[in-house]
């Protein structure tokens, strides 16, 4: 039986949100029940719990001396294990090396073991550490408990739940998110891509959306969150005489977001203060960051009409006035740093700058080397050029994908200045292609749209709304070493076997045509695993002779055939691909007699 509530969870890099639809409120009214946002009860100060619309994705691992005893108990749990939310963010700024933040960005970082306790990355000695999966699990568990506290009559575990992930998350990161949700006690969980969720939220708010788009339109969703930037293209097609929606492209994972922009502004003010001989300590820098964000929001608000905002850092000790540090943030500076730094006017031919390869790179998150969102967008739209098969993606004279509509999502795109610039740059490209300017689809509620859209999608899955057809957002390959005589000093050339073509639909499975692999029983067999966001015409079983730059290596996948299964020491198997109803990609080894073993992602392995 369908659950009464449909819960949508935006598990964000910097903030989480939870929205829900109450199907019992539907009644005879054919209109969909409104989607509501749950206030998430959280500690805001020691001993003070308040419900807020967003839960900061911040997790503090306090020591015994960091809070007065009993002051961080929650209404549903008296244990003082970890603190999540507003208070964690606040107190974490004062406590070095005890705050876990951006856990989600670590979840899709293939350069580290994502199940090993590595966070906080710069943990103080003796501080407990968590794995990125564990941190995500704790956020999800917290949201479950907050729901159960607020809605005791409708247990979370019996509701339908949708959790959003960036469209750019690869199969491994999706698998880890799913795993974290299951460990957090989620029973019926489905993953959904964030830009799609943002588009569902727009549909939810515009029941007459069918009048605003026509067959052949192409909708670009730009989602700039606190820590990540995500692009998606959705095509409007026709199916059995009805308008249908198809997600036709997703971008690469770009670690670049609003936090980077606020930090850039803080650095600007810090540099000005340094020139005047004022040096700031770590905590004053935190305050500066915070105040710069507030000042930026004021300056970017078209109704405020001010040209500069004071940024004040009060004296640290009780000498508040005596130690005050004054600085100013000018509207012109904000415009310059944001627009020229992050949204420069570039041509659609420009590529994001690549990072210089440094032999010894400091470990940490692989932030985008080029902060220019517009260059990343140009690359994304141009990537679509090489695909001739997808007629649904409309393209201009040079092959650039030419969207007809744009939907913005994420806090950064609140600012009209930023929206206007991004739209102007896009339209300059479209003009060069001879295409009409793109129209803006006005979204509302940019902070909660993803959670709202996820709840709407839950209803759509029950046949109560339109669904975007998407399938697997990338093409996946396993590596096969060619059987050539080895050349000393050179690795054997690698070929890639297509195991999941782009767009393979949820709830389908297919045997991969091609070679049989001989697996030794009782020993782990490992396959190298690759994906590509731009190669969309490789069919199932196609063998790619040259693995180029457009194919990216992921964590390897492995399987161990139990020795007790009988048969010879070498079992010939073929591969089978399954995309579950909930959108999870699985690879299976199938023996000739029909026995099957699932291939697991080996996230413990590091990729060179």
């Amino acid at each position: 039986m369908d659950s009464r509530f449909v819960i949508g969870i935006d598990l964000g890099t910097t903030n989480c949100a939870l929205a829900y639809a109450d199907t019992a409120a539907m009644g005879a009214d054919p209109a969909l029940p409104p989607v509501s946002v749950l206030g998430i009860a959280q500690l805001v100060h020691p001993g003070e719990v308040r419900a807020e619309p967003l839960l900061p994705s911040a997790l503090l691992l306090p020591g015994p001396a960091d809070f007065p005893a009993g002051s961080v108990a929650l209404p549903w749990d008296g244990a003082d294990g970890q603190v999540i939310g507003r208070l964690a963010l606040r107190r974490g700024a004062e406590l070095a090396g005890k705050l876990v933040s951006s856990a989600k960005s670590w979840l899709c970082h293939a350069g580290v073991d994502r199940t090993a306790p590595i966070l906080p990355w710069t943990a103080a000695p003796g501080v407990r550490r968590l794995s990125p999966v564990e941190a995500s699990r704790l956020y999800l568990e917290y949201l479950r408990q907050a729901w159960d506290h607020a809605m005791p009559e409708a247990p979370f575990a019996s509701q339908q739940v949708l959790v959003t992930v960036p469209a750019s998350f690869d199969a491994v990161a999706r698998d880890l998110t799913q795993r974290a949700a299951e460990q957090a006690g989620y029973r019926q969980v489905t993953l959904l891509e964030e830009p799609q969720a943002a588009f569902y939220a727009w549909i939810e708010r515009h029941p007459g959306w069918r009048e605003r788009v026509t067959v052949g339109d192409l909708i670009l969703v730009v989602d700039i969150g606190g820590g990540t930037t995500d692009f998606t293209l959705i095509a409007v097609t026709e199916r059995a005489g009805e308008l249908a929606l198809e997600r036709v492209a997703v971008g690469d994972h770009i670690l670049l977001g609003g936090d980077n922009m606020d930090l850039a502004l803080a650095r600007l003010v810090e540099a000005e203060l340094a020139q005047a001989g004022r040096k700031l300590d770590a905590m004053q820098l935190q305050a500066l960051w915070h105040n710069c964000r507030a000042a930026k929001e004021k300056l970017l608000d078209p109704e405020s009409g001010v040209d500069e905002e004071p940024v004040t850092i009060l004296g640290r000790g009780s000498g508040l006035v005596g130690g005050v540090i004054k600085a100013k943030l000018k509207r012109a500076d904000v415009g310059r740093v944001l627009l020229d730094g992050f949204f420069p006017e570039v041509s659609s031919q420009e590529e994001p700058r690549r990072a210089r390869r440094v032999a010894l790179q400091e470990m940490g998150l692989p932030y985008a080397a080029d902060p220019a969102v517009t260059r990343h967008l140009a690359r994304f739209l141009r990537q679509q050029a090489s695909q001739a098969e997808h007629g649904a993606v409309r393209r201009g004279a040079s092959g650039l994908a030419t969207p007809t509509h744009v939907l913005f999502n994420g806090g950064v795109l609140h600012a009209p200045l930023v929206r206007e610039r991004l739209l102007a740059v896009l339209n300059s490209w479209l003009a060069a292609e001879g295409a009409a300017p793109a129209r803006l689809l006005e979204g509302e509620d940019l902070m909660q749209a993803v959670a709202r859209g996820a709840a709407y999608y839950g209803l759509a899955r029950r046949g109560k709304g339109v669904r975007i057809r998407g399938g697997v957002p990338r093409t996946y390959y396993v590596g096969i070493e060619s059987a050539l005589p080895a050349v000393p000093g050179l690795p054997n050339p690698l070929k890639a076997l297509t195991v999941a073509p782009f767009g393979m639909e949820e709830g389908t499975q297919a045997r991969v045509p091609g070679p049989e692999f001989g697996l030794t029983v009782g020993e782990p067999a490992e396959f190298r695993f690759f994906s590509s966001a731009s190669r969309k015409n490789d069919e199932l079983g196609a063998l790619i002779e040259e693995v180029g730059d457009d194919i990216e290596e992921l964590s390897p996948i492995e399987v161990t055939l139990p020795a007790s299964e009988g048969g010879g020491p070498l079992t010939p198997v073929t591969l089978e691909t399954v995309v579950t109803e909930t959108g999870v990609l699985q690879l299976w080894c199938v023996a000739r007699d029909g026995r099957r073993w699932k291939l697991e992602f080996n996230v413990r392995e590091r990729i060179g």
Partner: protein
Amino acid sequence: MGRLGLAIKSFWAILRTGALPDEVVQRLGLARRGPAKAAPAAAQAGPAEGALQMLGILQRDARLIDFLMEDIAAYSDDQVGAAVRSVHQQCREALNRYVQLAPVIDGVEGTFTKLAGIELTAVKLVGNVPPQPPPGGVLRHRGWRGVKVDLPPLGAKTNLSVVAPAEIEIE
């Protein structure tokens, strides 16, 4: 004088003199027993607790006590102004969050206002006041009324006498 009136009166008296006013002491049936002995810890927050808690909040969120206790005579208006903007904004946010305030008389200052239907304890008559309450007068100050106080619950071990904890940085 309701609980809020008591709390606010206590608040300002403590702020100015460091002690509860006689009026509050009498009304609550308290006795002054020397500085060392505070009122016994009550299960429910009394006015002194409420006042200290409010002070603690204003210090925590806006650093009001730091500001009021600092000798600002030596600093330029410019410097004081920069600090005040920050303290003022955060005090206001904290006040709005925990206390709901509304004018006693929601009228336009400087205009004639009828007194009918308004409790006299909420109005201060000034100027040429006759022996009998007049029908009305010119509104000079709209007054403030605490509509609701929504302070967070206190833990059993909360030490309210610490308005702001000392900070020690471990380097």
